[in-house]
C-alpha cells in the first residue's frame, strides 16, 4: 500500500528546569493511504507529542526535535520552516483536538472560523468559501447550516462543536487528518455519533487518519492498524485483529486485560501495577520492565528491537527472541484469542 506519511527514528526532547525530558525516543511508523492508524497509550506515553510534532505545534521555546524525519510527500516536515508549514497545516494535514468546548474561538462566528482555511489555502472568494463552508456544515450533520453559519460557538452544544471542529479540519480535503483524542471530552452517546461521522467522512473524502486515543474500545471501532506507545516508543504495531487477539508485548497484554468485556461480572478490573517511566532519566533497558511480571534480566539492560511477528505485526519485547523462554499471555488475553478464532471458524 502507498505510504503517505512516514515517521523515522523520531526523537523529541523538552528542556525543563530539572533537565531534558526525552518524551519521544525513536518512534517509527508509516501511515498508508486511506487507512486509520490508531496510536494508543497511557498519558505521558508520547502519543500527543508525536502528533503535535508532525504539525509543528509543539511549543517553540522548550521543545526540540533531536533527530529523525517526518516524511510527507517527499518532504521532511521536521526540517521545514514555520512559514512553509503554514501552507501544509489545514490544507494537507489537519487536526482535530480533544476538547470541543475550548477549541473554537469564542468571539468569532463559527462560519468565519470555517471559511478562514478555505480562503487561505484554496484562494476562494468569500462568497464561494461560504458556500463551501455551508456544504461542509451540512456534511458533518449540523442542521440549518445557513443559520448556524452566523452563530457563535457558545450557541452550540459540545457534540455540535466537535462537528464544527471536524468541519474546519476537513474544509480543505486534507490528505492526513490527525485526531487527538477527539471523543474523550464527549459523553458516550455523542462519542458514538462522532466516531460514525468520522468513519463516514473518511470514505467520502478519502483521507488517512491518525487516531490518538487511550480508549481501546474506540480503537476497535475505528482503526485499521494500531500502534501501542509506551515511554516514548512504539512497543507494538499491527492490524487491529493482530493487536487485539494476538498481542505480543506484555504492556499490550496489560492494556487488553484491563479492558472490561460483556461477561466481566463482579471481579475487580485488572490494572497494570506501577507508574509510567520517568523520561527525565529514561531507563537503560525496556521502559516497561519494572512493571512487567515477565521481565527478564536482559530487559533491564538492553532495549529490545522490533521483532517481526508477521508482515504487518511487530513488537518490541525480548520475549520474542528465539532464545527467550516460552511465556503464556494472561488468561484474559488468551480468552479473547479463543473467542476470536472461534468466531473466525464460525464464519
Amino acid at each position: 500500500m502507498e505510504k503517505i506519511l512516514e515517521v523515522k527514528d523520531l526523537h523529541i526532547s523538552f528542556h525543563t528546569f530539572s533537565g531534558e525530558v526525552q518524551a519521544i525516543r525513536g518512534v517509527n511508523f508509516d501511515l498508508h493511504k486511506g487507512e486509520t492508524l490508531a496510536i494508543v497509550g497511557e498519558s505521558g506515553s508520547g502519543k500527543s507529542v508525536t502528533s503535535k510534532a508532525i504539525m509543528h505545534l509543539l511549543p517553540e521555546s522548550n521543545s526540540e526535535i533531536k533527530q529523525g524525519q517526518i516524511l510527507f510527500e517527499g518532504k521532511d516536515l521536521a526540517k521545514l520552516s514555520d512559514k512553509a508549514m503554514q501552507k501544509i497545516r489545514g490544507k494537507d494535514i489537519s487536526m482535530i483536538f480533544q476538547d470541543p468546548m475550548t477549541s473554537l474561538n469564542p468571539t468569532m462566528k463559527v462560519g468565519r472560523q470555517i471559511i478562514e482555511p478555505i480562503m487561505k489555502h484554496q484562494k476562494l472568494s468569500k462568497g464561494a468559501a461560504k458556500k463551501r463552508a455551508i456544504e461542509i456544515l451540512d456534511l458533518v450533520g449540523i442542521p440549518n447550516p445557513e443559520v448556524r453559519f452566523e452563530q457563535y460557538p457558545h450557541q452550540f452544544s459540545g457534540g455540535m462543536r466537535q462537528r464544527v471542529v471536524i468541519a474546519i479540519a476537513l474544509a480543505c480535503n486534507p490528505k492526513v487528518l490527525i485526531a487527538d483524542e477527539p471523543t474523550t471530552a464527549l459523553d458516550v452517546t455523542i462519542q458514538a455519533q462522532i466516531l460514525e461521522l468520522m468513519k463516514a467522512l473518511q470514505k467520502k473524502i478519502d483521507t488517512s487518519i491518525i487516531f490518538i486515543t487511550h480508549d481501546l474500545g474506540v480503537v476497535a471501532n475505528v482503526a485499521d492498524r494500531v500502534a501501542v506507545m509506551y515511554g516514548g516508543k512504539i512497543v507494538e504495531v499491527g492490524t487491529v485483529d493482530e493487536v487485539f487477539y494476538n498481542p505480543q508485548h506484555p504492556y499490550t497484554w496489560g492494556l487488553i486485560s484491563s479492558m472490561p468485556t460483556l461477561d466481566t461480572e463482579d471481579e475487580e478490573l485488572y490494572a497494570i501495577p506501577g507508574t509510567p517511566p520517568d523520561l527525565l532519566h529514561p531507563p537503560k533497558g525496556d521502559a516497561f520492565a519494572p512493571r512487567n511480571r515477565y521481565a527478564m534480566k536482559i530487559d533491564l539492560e538492553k532495549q529490545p528491537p522490533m521483532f517481526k511477528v508477521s508482515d504487518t505485526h511487530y513488537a518490541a519485547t525480548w520475549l520474542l527472541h528465539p532464545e527467550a523462554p516460552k511465556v503464556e499471555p494472561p488468561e484474559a488475553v488468551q480468552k479473547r484469542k479463543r473467542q476470536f478464532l472461534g468466531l473466525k471458524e464460525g464464519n
Partner: protein
Amino acid sequence: MAKYVTQRIIYMIITLFLIASFTFFLMKIIPGTPFTKADKLSETQLAIMKEKYGLDDPVPVQYANYMMNLVKGDLGVSFQFDNVGVTEIIVKSFGPSAQLGFQAIIFGTIFGIILGVLAALKQNTWVDYGSTFIAVLGKSIPSFVFAGLMQYYLGVKLGWFPVAFWRGPEYTILPTIALAMFPLATAARFVRTEMIEVLESDYIVLAKAKGASWFDIAFKHALRNALIPVVTVLGPLVVSLMTGSLVIEKIFGIPGIGEQFVKSIQVNDYPVIMGTTLLFAALFVVVILIVDLLYGVIDPRIRLAGGKK
C-alpha cells in the same frame, strides 16, 4: 437591547440625582464663604451679597431651589466672575480638556495595544523587555516630568512643536503625548498579560493548525479575546483624562476644566463646583454604560438581553 439601555438611563438619572444631593450638602460643610474679600466687607454688605445669591436661606431651601433650577437645566451663575453662567464656563473650559483627553486616550490605547501584542508575541526577547521598560516608565514617571522634558527637548531645543498655549492642532501634540503615557503603559501591561494567556488557549492552537499566519493569529484571533480586561481598566481612565489634568493644563497654559474645578473649590464658588461635579459624574456613568455595551460587542457571550436571536 433598547429596553436595557432605557433602563440603564433611568438608573443613571437616579445616580446623578443622588450625587448632586450628596455633593450639595458636602459642599456646604466646607468652611468659608464665596466672597474672597469677605473680611473687608461690612456686615450690611455681606448680608446684601448673601441675599443676592440666596445664601441667607436655610440650607434645605437652598437645596430645593438649586434642584428646581437644575431640573430646568439652569446651573446658576458663577460667584467668581460677574454674571457669567456656569454652563458657559463649563462649555468654554471643557472643550480643550475633552479634546486633549480624547486624543490622549486614543493615542495611548492604540500604541499601548500594539506594544502589548508585540511583547506577548515576542515574549522574553528584547521586544518584550523594551515594551516593559516603556510601560514602567509610563506608569512610574509623573506626567509633568514628561511634559517638562518634551517642552525642553522637542519644543525649545529642536523647535519641532510649540512649547505651550492653546492656539491650534499643533499645540495639542505635546500635552497629548504627556497625558497618553499613563493609558499607554496601562494598556500595554494588560494586553501583554492577557495576550500571553490567550495565546496558550486551545483555539489558538486550532488556528495554528488551520495554517493561519502569526498576524492573523495575533490580531484576528487573540486580540479580541484579550481586550475585555483592557476595556474595564481604560473606561474609567477615559473620564479622568477628559475631565482635565490640572498639572498638564498649568504646564502647557491650556484653559481647561481641570484648573477651573480646583479654583472653584478654593474660592467656594458653589455653582461651579456643583456644575463641574455633575459634568464629571454624568461623563462617568455614560462611560460605564458604553463600557458595558462594548463588552457585548467584543464578546458575544456577554451580549445583553435582546441581543440574542
